[in-house]
């Protein structure tokens, strides 16, 4: 599930068509390895599509002007954005994998537990690769 970081860290750009296609292909590769049909692809495409709105939510209206990178912003902003991204991605993924409305509890349980693990590992990686302010 760490591949969500790719979508998370992708630079802010206007070429969203390419970004959508890349996310779709990435998801499809995950699907072939895990035998999940198209659940990874659907979840990552959805996350890619809503990412600009999340960015607007977290960094405010003017995020495009400032020409910033996700990695260089404050750790609290990164955490908030990561939390939103992973909740959306995992909810989408597990609702497609479980595909059964009678198992809503199972869906929420899986989203919560796997989501927590993903956030932990992702935050560790981000802290490791985050450029230090000198």
């Amino acid at each position, binding site marked *: 599930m760490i591949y969500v970081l790719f979508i998370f860290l992708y630079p802010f750009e206007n070429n969203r068509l390419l970004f959508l296609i890349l996310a779709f292909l990435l998801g499809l590769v995950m699907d072939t390895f895990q035998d*999940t049909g*198209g659940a990874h692809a*659907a979840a990552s*495409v959805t996350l890619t599509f809503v990412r600009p709105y999340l960015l607007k939510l977290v960094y405010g209206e003017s995020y495009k002007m400032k020409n910033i990178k996700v990695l260089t912003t404050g750790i609290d902003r990164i955490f908030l954005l990561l939390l939103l991204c992973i909740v959306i991605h995992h909810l989408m993924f597990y609702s497609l994998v*479980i595909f059964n409305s009678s198992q809503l509890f199972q869906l929420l349980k899986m989203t919560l537990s796997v989501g927590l693990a993903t956030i932990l590992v992702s935050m560790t990686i981000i802290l490791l690769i985050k450029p230090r302010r000198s």
Partner: protein
Amino acid sequence: MQHIINFLIKYRNLLLYLILFSVALVFTIQSHEYQRTMFIHSTGNVTGALLEKRNTFYEYFDLDQQNEYLSSENARLRMRLLALGDTLLGSETTLIFSDSLPYKVIPARVIKNGYDKLDNFITLDIGSNQDIEPDMGVITSNGLVGIIDVTSADYSRVISILNSEMSLNAQIKGTSTIGSLTWDGSDPYIMNLIDVPRRAIVSKGDTIITGYQSTTFPPDIEIGVVENVVLVDNGSRYDIQVRLLNNMTDLGYVYVIKNRDKEAIQIIDTLQINE
């Protein structure tokens, strides 16, 4: 016309998103159907080879456990062999080594195992080059694993018994009561034996074995032990919780079962239907 093009340019992101999302959705829905012709699965040459590489690495951490399994199975087989040697006399002993046995057993290695989803699949490192065909049964020394689903030249995919689409014919040992063994998707150690008639005699601790009605698995393979018995549908049927004997979360080596008489039995069965 200008308006349509403007509209397309304005909403191109949304449109592309909708297209890609529906493609992914189609794949997902396909993967939830039982008999399917899908091309997104883990038996391809590239994915299979990568999974196998990964497995050769992980295998080292599991060697002790696998050695223990194999040696205990060897001991059990040796016991059987000694008992057999006692009963068979002279030339009849060669029966064991002849080609006319009804079941052919092919060993295989699990290179990918899943148990955390609702529909789980296992990938094996043998395929149609080793005479593996769809619908053959897969077992371990302790119990059932699943049924072969898709085969490529060198790899094959197994529908795990931990799959909501799976329904197996099973029987309570010592009686001829049969039922269907299914999985509800929650606990990888527990399966449910449903559609057991109320008059069946069943109690906690009984053993569940494979039935004679299946052409996929040989009869009398032990599957699990009865954990809990509940009457459902106004007390007309039993719903039995079965604790599996083998650990589906820890699979190393498995055996694929090829039934010699399968086609013959199926021909007889369809004859009855056409009558």
